[in-house]
């Protein structure tokens, strides 16, 4: 099994990313551009092209007219990026088990893929990804609610 991280972002203007940009600036985080994408983990079965075709034909997660798909080099955030992943507290785990659902937050890729969370990528005025310090500030002040989410850097 080869885990493959996929980024699915909008190729049309992303209003949420723009709102985040404005809010972050208001909160004193000096950023010039914000990109947002969904991160999925798939088992590529050793055939990346087949995986790409499979995702592009899955209308539940990908719309060819408005989404862009990117295969990431590794299952980790890129430079200037944080992944905001939902936490699964014991209460939630117990509730899911009681209702016959699998506990979430295993990072094992399944055939149908698993949505890991939201990736936020921040760029400075020079067009380069922002520093780790600025990323931490952005996550702490706005992008992550530590009560229900965790940050992967």
């Amino acid at each position, binding site marked *: 099994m080869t885990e493959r991280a996929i980024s699915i972002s909008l190729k049309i203007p992303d209003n949420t990313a723009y709102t985040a940009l404005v809010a972050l600036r208001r909160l004193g985080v000096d950023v010039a551009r914000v990109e947002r994408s969904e991160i999925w983990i798939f088992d590529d079965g050793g055939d990346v092209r087949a995986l790409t075709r499979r995702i592009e034909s899955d209308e539940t997660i990908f719309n060819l007219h408005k989404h862009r798909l990117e295969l990431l080099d590794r299952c980790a955030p890129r430079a200037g990026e944080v992944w905001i992943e939902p936490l699964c507290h014991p209460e939630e785990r117990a509730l899911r088990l009681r209702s016959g659902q699998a506990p979430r937050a295993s990072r094992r890729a399944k055939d149908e893929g698993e949505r890991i969370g939201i990736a936020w990528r921040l760029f400075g005025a020079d067009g380069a990804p922002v520093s780790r310090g600025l990323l931490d500030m952005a996550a702490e002040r706005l992008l992550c609610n530590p*009560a229900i989410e965790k940050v992967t850097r």
Partner: protein
Amino acid sequence: MSARIAVPVFPGTNSEDETVRLLRDCGGDAELVHWSKAEELALYDAFVLSGGFAYEDRIRAGAIAAHDRIMDYVMEAARCGKLVFGVCNGAQILLEAGLVPGTGSGRKPTAAFAKNLPEPHFVCRHVYLKLSIEPSRSAITAALPHGALVPAWAAHAEGRLAAAPEHLKEIVEGDHLAFVYAHADGGVDDAAVPNGSALRCAGLVNREGNVLAIMPHPERDAWNFNHLDRREGADVLAPSGGAVLFRSFVQAVSATQASHPEPRPEGACRRTRASE
């Protein structure tokens, strides 16, 4: 002049009209305040954050609104002891802002109303909120009887209280669990909970008791015509059960204002003069 209540309107708020109408029906002097006029909030004695989808729930429900200029005023006012009441999206905003349960520091949230479970879908269901604190624990609930049942409509996709075990413990031990979901007969069990909420929580109050956040909408069960069991033949505008919580809030606002007859001079802590 009676105490003035502001109902702030963020882009995406959608329950402001029925909220203002019910506050007025309960004797409150309520007005809408547009998000672009945040500075006007200094003229008000209390705040009700109504339901909707502020800023389209971008990033997370309530996240952007929690950092809006409006909330700068509301937070400062809450610090000064003014009453703040949030319903549904308003409650989500209060949690995102860290005002309730208020066990963290500054704007750091320690809990959230997260996606419903076990089905992560929007829920629209009639519910009952049961007061689970002593009424006097919060000025806002002070006029309710012990264990009061308040009918309301749950209408949300993110209403499940979620927090780390240590923060849930703080909520219980700090007596922050203001309302739990209940059946019409007052019985409390998991079947009454529409969203998988931890502690069966329907509402939280802060330590000082002046900020209350509830997920379901009592203002949508405030008149006979929108009560679950419409009473045939009764006046369609006769008050229904949901009005009791708003009435208690308005009474608390009036009492608070009466106890501060002189206006404080500046900003969000200013109070309208009782004699004005």
